[in-house]
Each structure stands twice: as C-alpha cells, then as structure tokens.
C-alpha cells in the first residue's frame, strides 16, 4: 500500500488541478455568454443575406458569371476555423478530421486557417497552408472577415482556386456543436426552396453588376457568421470539457481520500500492535 505521504501529495496535486479547471470553466462560461449574444445578434443579417442571394440566383440561374461557373482547373481552397487555445475537448480535432477526411487529394487543397490549432495540425500533416489569420479569432470583426474574403476572391479570379469551402463549427446550442463544411463558391442554389418565391425583381445597376457587388458581401457575411458561430462553439466546448474535468477530479479526490484514511487507520493499528508487543516483552 502506498504510504500516507504519497497519497496526500497526489491528492493535493489533483486538488490544485481541479481549481484550475474550475476557474477555466467559469471563464469560458462568461465568454460563451458573450459570444452567444454576438452570434445571435448577427443572425438576421446572414439569414437575409442567404435568402436574397438565393432568390437572386434562382431567377438568374443561367447567367454567365464567373462566380457561378464551375471551373475545371485550379485547386480547392478550404477556410478552416479552429481556436488558438486547446483544452476544448474534441473541438479542434473534429474540424481537422473534416478536412483530412474530405476525400479531396491533399495536393489539390490549399488551406486558409483561422486559429493556430488547426494551422499547426494541418501543417504537420503536410497540407499547403496558404494564409493564416489566427490573430483575429479572439474577437472577430466584420472587417476581418472582409480581408479574408477579399484574399479568397482575388485568388479565385486569378484562377488559382476553383472552389472555396468553409469548415467551421456550427453552434446549435450550449451543449451541441456541429462541425460543418459548406461550399462558398461557386455559389450553389437551393432550387427547391427558391422556386416558390416568384416575385419579379428589378436591379439597379444591372443584374450582373449587382451580382458582382453582392456576392463578395455574401462571402464576407458567410465567413463572419462562421467566425461568430465558431467562437461560441469553442467556448461551449471548453466549458463542457472543463466541467467534466472538474467532476473527474472530484471523483479521484474522493477515492484518494478513502485510500488515505485506510492507510492512516492501518498505520495506527500497526503502531498499537508494536506498542503492545513491546510492553509484553518488558513484563
């Protein structure tokens, strides 16, 4: 049986770990609240943006526009949104899996990362990391999303990339987050949904010119929305991970206390036996 001192040392060390995980849980709860509010406030914008772009494209379905045409040459760009910090359970790993198991050959993929965890993991797997915007994930602004989307569209227009995907974690609610991969370009329309809305729409300036201006905004808003969702999911995932770490520590402390008490009792019994044996020997 381990000595009393060893057990005690072990217990103290677990206790201090538990204090850390408890504190981390509290901070991520606060951050989650904030991120959740931001994600909710930004939602109407994206819903409407998505609807409008869908409606526009449904009507002008066979318009000859570079943003809508599938190309044969070029690489596939994936925007990977992860976090800068670990200790968030499977949060980062799920996104990385989404990329590595996408079925697209590694040579044909260029990666744009937000979040150092994703960047490092994919670099280790020899993916081609084109750009990294990790410093924005702490507090993403609309202008940050704008920078990313401009870089992507430039590369798209120059024919370096033929399609753009976005891999991020969708924030369903506090306990459930869903890693997702969506296609940004060429824009695909959801034909079922849009067929009913048959309002004839006029455009000023002309339709193609309007598309030229609206699609970059659409991409930016999708990226911004994904960033918001990802930040909320990250904090949610961390909160859960830290919650279970805290309760695991609790369990370990309980069983160690039991062991400790048993060892203490054992040593007292032993001492007593020794004293009695000693007294017997003298008399």
């Amino acid at each position, binding site marked *: 049986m381990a000595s009393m001192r060893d057990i005690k040392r072990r217990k103290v060390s677990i206790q201090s770990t538990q204090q850390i995980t408890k504190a981390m849980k509290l901070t991520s709860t606060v951050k989650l609240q904030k991120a959740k509010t931001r994600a909710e406030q930004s939602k109407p914008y994206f819903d*409407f943006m998505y609807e409008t772009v869908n409606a526009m494209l449904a009507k002008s379905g066979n318009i000859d526009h570079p943003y809508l045409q599938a190309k044969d040459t070029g690489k596939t760009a994936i925007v990977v949104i992860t976090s800068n910090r670990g200790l968030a359970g499977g949060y980062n790993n799920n996104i990385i899996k989404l990329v590595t198991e996408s079925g697209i050959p590694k040579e044909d993929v260029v990666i744009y990362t937000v979040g150092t965890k994703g960047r490092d993991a994919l670099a280790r797997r020899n993916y081609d990391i084109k750009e990294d915007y990790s410093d924005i994930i702490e507090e993403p602004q609309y202008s940050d999303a704008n920078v990313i989307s401009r870089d992507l569209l430039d590369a798209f227009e120059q024919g370096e990339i033929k399609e753009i995907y976005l891999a991020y974690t969708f924030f369903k609610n506090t306990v459930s987050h869903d890693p997702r991969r969506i296609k940004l370009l060429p824009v695909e329309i959801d034909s079922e949904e849009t067929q009913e809305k048959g309002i004839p729409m006029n455009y000023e300036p002309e339709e193609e010119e309007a598309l030229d201006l609206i699609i970059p905004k659409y991409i930016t808003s999708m990226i911004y929305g994904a960033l918001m969702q990802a930040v909320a999911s990250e904090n949610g995932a961390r909160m859960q991970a830290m919650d279970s770490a805290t309760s695991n520590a609790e369990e370990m402390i309980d069983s160690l206390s039991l062991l400790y008490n048993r060892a203490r009792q054992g040593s007292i019994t032993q001492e007593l036996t020794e004293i009695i044996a000693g007294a017997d020997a003298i008399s």
Partner: protein
Amino acid sequence: MAELMKLQVICPDRIFYEGEVSMVEFNTTEGEVGIYPKHIPLTSILAPGILTITEEDGLKNAALHSGFVQILPEKVTVMAEAAEWPHEIDLGRAEAARDRAEERIKNRSDKTDIARAETALQRAIARINVIK
C-alpha cells in the same frame, strides 16, 4: 395620414432599425433615392451617404456605409455593412479621416488605392453631414 411600410436596417452585428415609416431616403450607386410605400420591387447597391427615415412623428437621420437594399411594395430591407446614429459618431475622428483621405487623393502615387481613398472620403463626409 400617410401610408406606411415596414423598414428594416440590418447590420452584421445588430438590427439597427426596425419600424413603420412613410418614407425612406438613401444614397445608391446610381444616385440619391427616396422610397415611398408601394414601390416596385427593386434591389439596389448602396453608396455611403445619409439615411433619412420619415416616421409618422418626425425624421431620423443616420450615416450609412456600403451594402445593398431590397425594396418590396410593403417592405424595405437595408443590408448595411455599417450604420451609425448621429450620437454614435465622433466628429473629430470623422474630420481627421476626411482630411487623411483628401490628402491621399491629392498626393496620389502609383501605390495609392484611389478607389479605397475615395470610399473613405465619402464615408467620412457622410458621417460629418449627418451630424450637421
């Protein structure tokens, strides 16, 4: 009483304005427009400028920068990348931005992104005009 329509001004970070209005005016890439209820469906691209909302009991002004607008007979939805009420604008900063943009346009070199400087200038002017 004037006829009313629904107006929504949505920004990426908040719903900027929502309410019943009798007229709304703003600046598009094709020029300034004023929209009354029962307008034909129209989608237009915004240019930096002043958004004037005519409610039943008065006028409201705001600065509006880039985005687009969808007009339906009963409803106008403005998708703005940024919008500000006058009390949110820092006049000193807007004036500094205007001077900076003017400077850049005046001393243009090959490296200057003229389009960007011009939008910055328009934006600053819009902000200043809203306050005045």
